[in-house]
Each structure stands twice: as structure tokens, then as C-alpha cells.
């Protein structure tokens, strides 16, 4: 591990150590926060007892579906918009301000249409993630060397094959960025949706535990959620870096 990596590790350990001590000696009262070790213990016992398995799987399934939908639709729409510069110019302001609006205010509307089940959660997650993927696809396609498009024309590839064989691989580093953002945004939307209106899922359980003053369950679930998201985004981040540096070398 690099020197910076070691320092990071020390900082993280020091942070959780300080939190632990402050909780133990009562600077932070137990109603506000429980010590990190107790969070881990609460999570461990919940995992062993299987009391949260169903909710975790429900949220996971919805998030995966939302990510898949936003990545796929985002890429396809990105390729189409990239091929039509006029349309792109028109839509540009929309893309630029999309994330300034809390899109999940549309969640209740989706609930009215589809009922309280997984469909509105998946759709709101996909709505949140799709534009990030679309923008990254556009950026990626902008960086594809022109010579690639020329050779696609030389080989007389049809639009579908040129998208899959030429555009997809050569825009890959930026597409990974898009996937990473789509994951982050989809998680936010799915969990926020579960907070507001849902009968299942990890967000629902956290909100329920909060209203119930059940801080062990709440912090255990928060720990699980934050750890999972951090691991996923950090792995995608490292993958992204590796692809970017490999492309830069070529």
C-alpha cells in the first residue's frame, strides 16, 4: 500500500476510534448515536437472525433493476442523441439542470399510477440514474477518435454493430464513470423512495426503526447500507482509474 493509503487508513481508524470513545464516555448521548462497535454487533446479530434478509434483498433487487435500466436506456439514448447534434443542442440545457431538481418528487405520482410495489421504486431509480449515464455516454463518444468512425464506415458496419463493436469499447472509460454515477443516483432514489412511501425494503426499515426509537436496528442498517455503497463505488472508481490510465497510454 502507498504512503497515502496508509495515512488514509489511520485517519479512518482514528475517526471511528474517536467516535467510539465519545459515545462511551457520554459526550454523545445514547439516544443520538450508539458506539460504532455496537452498530456492528447489532448488524451482525440481525444478519445471523435473518430478520432483515428479506428487506435487504428487496432493496438490492430494486436497485440492480434500476441501475440496469438506467445504464441500458442511458447508453441507447446517448448513442441516439450523439448521432443527432441538433437534438443534442436543444436538450443540452435540460441535461445541465436535471440534477438540480429533486426528481423523486415524481415518486408519489408513480405510486398513484403503479401502486405501492417495486415498480415505482425501480422507475424512480432509473429516472434518477439515466441522465448521468446519458451524459457520460455523450462525453465518451465525443472522445472516440474520428479514425474509428471512419474505419466503421470502411467496413460498412450497420448502426447496431458500429455501436456495439466500435462505440461501446472505445468510449468504455467514460461509460464506467456513467455506470458509477448511475449506481449512486439509483441508490439515492430507491432508498429515498422507500423512506417516503413503501411497505418493504431497507429504507423503510430504517425509517420505521427511527420512528420507533430503535437505534440499534437503525444504526445497524445504516452501517450496512453505507458500507455496501462505499465498497461498490470505490471498486467502480478503481476500475475507472485503471481504464482511464490504460487508454491514456495507448
Amino acid at each position, binding site marked *: 500500500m502507498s504512503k*497515502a493509503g496508509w*495515512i488514509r487508513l489511520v485517519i479512518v481508524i482514528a475517526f471511528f476510534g474517536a467516535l467510539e470513545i465519545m459515545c462511551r464516555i457520554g459526550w454523545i448521548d445514547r439516544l443520538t*448515536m450508539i458506539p460504532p462497535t455496537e452498530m456492528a454487533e447489532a448488524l451482525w446479530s440481525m444478519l445471523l437472525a435473518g430478520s432483515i434478509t428479506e428487506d435487504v434483498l428487496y432493496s438490492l433487487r430494486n436497485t440492480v433493476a434500476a441501475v440496469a435500466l438506467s445504464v441500458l436506456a442511458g447508453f441507447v439514448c446517448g448513442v441516439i442523441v450523439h448521432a443527432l447534434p441538433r437534438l443534442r443542442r*436543444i436538450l443540452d440545457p435540460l441535461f445541465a*439542470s436535471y440534477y*438540480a431538481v429533486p426528481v423523486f418528487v415524481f415518486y408519489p*405520482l408513480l405510486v398513484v399510477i403503479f401502486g405501492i410495489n417495486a415498480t415505482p421504486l425501480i422507475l424512480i431509480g432509473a429516472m434518477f440514474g439515466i441522465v448521468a449515464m446519458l451524459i457520460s455516454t455523450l462525453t465518451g463518444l465525443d472522445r472516440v477518435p474520428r479514425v474509428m468512425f471512419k474505419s466503421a464506415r470502411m467496413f460498412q458496419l450497420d448502426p447496431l454493430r458500429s455501436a456495439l463493436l466500435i462505440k461501446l469499447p472505445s468510449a468504455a472509460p467514460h461509460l464506467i464513470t456513467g455506470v*458509477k454515477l448511475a449506481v449512486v443516483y439509483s441508490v439515492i432514489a430507491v432508498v429515498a423512495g422507500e*423512506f417516503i412511501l413503501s411497505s418493504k425494503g431497507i429504507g423503510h426499515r430504517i425509517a420505521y426503526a427511527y420512528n420507533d426509537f430503535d437505534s440499534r436496528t437503525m444504526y445497524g442498517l445504516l452501517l450496512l*447500507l453505507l458500507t455496501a455503497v462505499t465498497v461498490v463505488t470505490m471498486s467502480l472508481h478503481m476500475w475507472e482509474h485503471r481504464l482511464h490510465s490504460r487508454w491514456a497510454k495507448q
Partner: protein
Amino acid sequence: MMKHRAIDYVLLVVGLLVVWQICHELVGEYALTSPLATFAYAAKELGDAHFWNNAGASALALLYALIIAMVGGLAIGLALGLNRLAGDVADPMLITLFSVPKVTLYPVILLVFGLGLSAKVAFGALHGIFPVAIFTLNGIRKINPIYVKASRSLNLSRSRTIFTVLLPAALPEIVSGLRVGFAATILGTLIGEMFAATEGLGFMLIKAIDENNVELLMSLTLFLFLVAATANGILLAIDHRLHRRSAAAA
């Protein structure tokens, strides 16, 4: 050129209205009000003191959150950017903190700050501070080393180096960060109001959701979108101009 852009905007607005009307026809009055009905309702709301009281409460919370996010983010980015090792250590940590779905932390924020203004401000600032810090850090690190050498050979003091060399040179990046941070802060403040407030537009949103008042929900969404899009458009124009100027200077 100007005329082209005006036509593009008109086309975008008309296109969005058409899509909206089609969605309205598809799902019906109870799920999605028509553009015309929404505009009529929004006009009525705009004449209502109750709406402006809530909008004022949101604006105040947003202002505080923006000040904390901008000043804090700049200070963090600058402090870490001045030292190579500190920057290397902090960069991935800031990115992780940025990508954590902070919606999940709302019970913690509520427990720490209680229901009210400080919780909203904390939520907004928490969303906005990381993008500002990340962009500032990268801006400082990407500065042409010649500038730093020149300031050293001119024997400038540390504060003069920061204010007359580093900040102006990193300005395009910083403005990009402020733009992204601005959008994130709006989103954070609104989410904070949805979960942790008794007044403000976010609170009106969550009440409209509970009462299933689709007209109010759509009017508020429309209002927020227009405000966010306008502010974003202005910052985007400044952003583009600065980037073009620095590209011309390089």
C-alpha cells in the same frame, strides 16, 4: 448564433410541454395534471402569502447552507491542494463522501440537530460542501507549476500567493465546483425540508404527497425546476466563459 439558441430554447420548452401533455393523457387527471391546469394552479399559489412564507423559509435555509458549503468547500480544497501528500490522501476520501447517499443520514441529522432550521441547513451544506472541495482541490493541483515558481521568485507571502496567483488560476475549476455544489445544496436543503422541517417548500412537497394533492405537487415541482434551471443556466454561462478564457490564455 443568438437567434439559433433562442429557437433551441423554444423547441425544448414546447417539446417538454408536449411530452407532459401526452403523459397526462396517458395516466389521467388523478396522477398527473395537465400543463394548463398546473400553470393555473401555480399562478394561484404565487398570489398566496402562505406559499411565499414557505419559499422565504427555504430561501433562508438555502442561503445559510450555500455559505457554509461554498466557504467550507473552498477552504478544505485550498488547504488540501497546497500540500501534495494531503491532496493524495484526501482525494479518494472526498469522492467517497461525495458519493455516499446522504439521504440515508437523515435520521442521524435529525437526532443531532432536531427538527428545524439547523437540520435543513446541515443537510444542504452536507450535500454541497464535497463537490466544491473536490473541484477546488483538483483546480489547485492542476495549476501550471510555472505560476507557483513565479510567485516564489517574486517572494510573495503565502496569503498573497493564494489570493493573487492560486485562486485566480484555479477560478474556472472553482466556478464549475460552485455550480455543481449549488445544485447539490438545493437538492440537499429540499430533502432536509421534506424529512426534517415544519416549514419551507420541501415541507409543502411532503404535505402535498401525504394529502395526494397532485396539483400542488406539480406546481411546486414546476416552480423549483424553473428556479433551479435559471440559476444553473446563469452559472453555466459564467462557467463556459471562464473556461474559454483560460483555454485562450494557455
